[in-house]
């Protein structure tokens, strides 16, 4: 709609009541101070046709007015921009700290847990962890195109509980978010529980004690670095990208995975090349990968002793039909036309060392695992596709499938849609992540 307004064509957008703030905030992010809306009480999804038609009847005047009537002046007062330095006065520092946390909760700047105080001294110390200038702009972070200076990233890292040495990892994670291939806007504002998982590879993982083994995804003191690095990325998405719940984060229920997810690859127990080497980096380089996921499930198998048996079990996960990614390729690819980007959806396996050894001892490499999962993770076409109109729009050459509803097809588009990272302690259970989009990897310290 913004692109139409920019081209001089008036628009009106149908919007459900719950999404009014989102629609207005999205329009503002693109520079449009107001947008004409026709409001429905509920989304049209999951509604019967008669109900949808009635909603059109009930709000048709808003459609007409939106196209024909001059826009109302900007509503309300623009909130005064809070000062760059915030002061909290109290009887003692602990009380002042509590006041700060209450104020940050009231402003919506908190993830809900207590925050460390971003004092000048703490932020200065945090900035000592990077050679980048504090004013350097790392990116304009979507969805609101927040100006992600090194200093703003550092302030949020302090609040998350990070140490100065963690800052380069955090900055690189932000660089990953900003890569057009991430399609961050979609991940940030969606009604789905898209959550970023940070994967750290290379020497820095051990230098910073980023846990790759027992309880790597937390919680606990052994995963302190993991926890605070992951937490800082969420705070940055909120306070720098303005991805605030109910405004530009429209998640239907939310997810505990959105608070913090960070692991290192267990390179000691990985029988193959490290994940970042697979992705084109030298073994001695340190990298950060960010992969968004919708959720995760256990990959438990204490009985199998052969790759074939493990694959049989693993291949059940990608076909879970409540996951948007299963069969999504039949309707096209995740796209961002602003950057001419389209990506395949990837699922991620955090492969436990015990299972990795079974594969490796039988001469399997990751490509063979990927190929085998792809060949076994099949479902009937009638269950994988959501709507023949979607198939027609994306793959008109596949319309013949409508006459073959029981033909078994792969859940994901190609074998390379399965990413494999070795993580965890010795025992036969890993984790499967239903992924959203493609992972993005960047070298730590890069521009």
């Amino acid at each position: 709609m913004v692109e139409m307004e920019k081209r001089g064509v008036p628009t009106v957008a149908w919007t459900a009541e719950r999404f009014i703030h989102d629609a207005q905030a999205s329009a503002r992010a693109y520079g449009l101070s107001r947008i004409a809306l026709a409001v429905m009480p509920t989304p049209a999804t999951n509604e019967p046709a008669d109900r949808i038609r009635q909603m059109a009847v009930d709000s048709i005047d808003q459609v007409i007015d939106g196209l024909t009537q001059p826009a109302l002046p900007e509503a309300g007062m623009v909130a005064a921009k809070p000062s760059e330095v915030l002061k909290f006065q109290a009887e003692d520092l602990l009380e002042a700290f509590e006041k700060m946390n209450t104020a940050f909760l009231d402003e919506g700047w908190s993830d809900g847990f207590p925050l460390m105080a971003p004092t000048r001294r703490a932020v200065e110390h945090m900035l000592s962890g990077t050679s980048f200038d504090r004013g350097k702009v790392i990116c304009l972070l979507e969805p609101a195109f927040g100006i992600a200076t090194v200093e703003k990233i550092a302030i949020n890292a302090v609040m998350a509980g990070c140490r100065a040495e963690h800052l380069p990892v955090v900055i690189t994670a932000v660089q990953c978010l900003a890569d057009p291939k991430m399609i961050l806007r979609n991940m940030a504002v969606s009604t789905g529980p898209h959550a970023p998982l940070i994967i750290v590879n290379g020497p820095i993982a051990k230098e910073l004690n980023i846990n790759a083994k027992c309880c790597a995804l937390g919680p606990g003191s052994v995963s302190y670095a993991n926890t605070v690095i992951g937490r800082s990325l969420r705070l940055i998405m909120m306070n720098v990208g303005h991805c605030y719940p109910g405004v530009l984060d429209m998640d239907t229920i939310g997810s505990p995975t959105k608070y913090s997810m960070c692991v290192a690859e267990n390179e000691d127990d990985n029988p193959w090349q490290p994940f970042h080497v697979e992705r084109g980096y030298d073994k001695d380089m340190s990298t950060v990968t960010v992969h968004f996921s919708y959720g995760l499930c256990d990959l438990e198998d204490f009985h199998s002793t052969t790759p074939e048996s493990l694959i049989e079990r693993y291949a059940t996960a990608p076909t879970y039909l409540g996951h948007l990614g299963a069969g999504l390729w039949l309707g096209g690819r995740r796209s961002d036309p602003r950057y001419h980007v389209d990506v395949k959806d990837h699922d991620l396996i955090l492969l436990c060392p015990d299972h990795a050894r079974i594969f490796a001892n039988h001469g399997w490499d990751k490509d063979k695992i990927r190929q085998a999962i792809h060949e076994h993770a099949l479902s009937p076409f009638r269950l994988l596709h959501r709507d023949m109109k979607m198939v027609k729009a994306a793959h008109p050459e596949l319309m013949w499938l409508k006459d073959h509803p029981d033909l078994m097809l792969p859940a994901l588009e190609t074998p390379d849609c399965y990413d494999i990272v070795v993580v965890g302690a010795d025992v036969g259970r890993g984790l499967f992540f239903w992924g959203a989009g493609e992972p993005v990897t960047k070298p730590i310290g890069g521009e």
Partner: protein
Amino acid sequence: MVNLEVLNPVADAKPEKIELAPKQPDLSGKTVGLFFNQKPGGDILLEHTAELVKQRYSGIKFKNYLGAVGHIMRHATAEQADTISKECDAVIGSTAD
């Protein structure tokens, strides 16, 4: 009394301003685009919207557009936005939510 001074964590957003397009006071004889992003139900909503608007304006025409790229949610490319803006005097969009 003590003072705790902390730095504001919130980043400014990139300043950009787009002017709203002029409205179409009379839609009679005009062409209105119906932009559908493929979310289920949005097509029904747009189709019925067009029927209702048609009852109020003589000679009004409608053109349907489906986002050129994407999957469950399809987006307009810049080329498609150019085409729509050339072919239409106004646009009604549905994201279904």
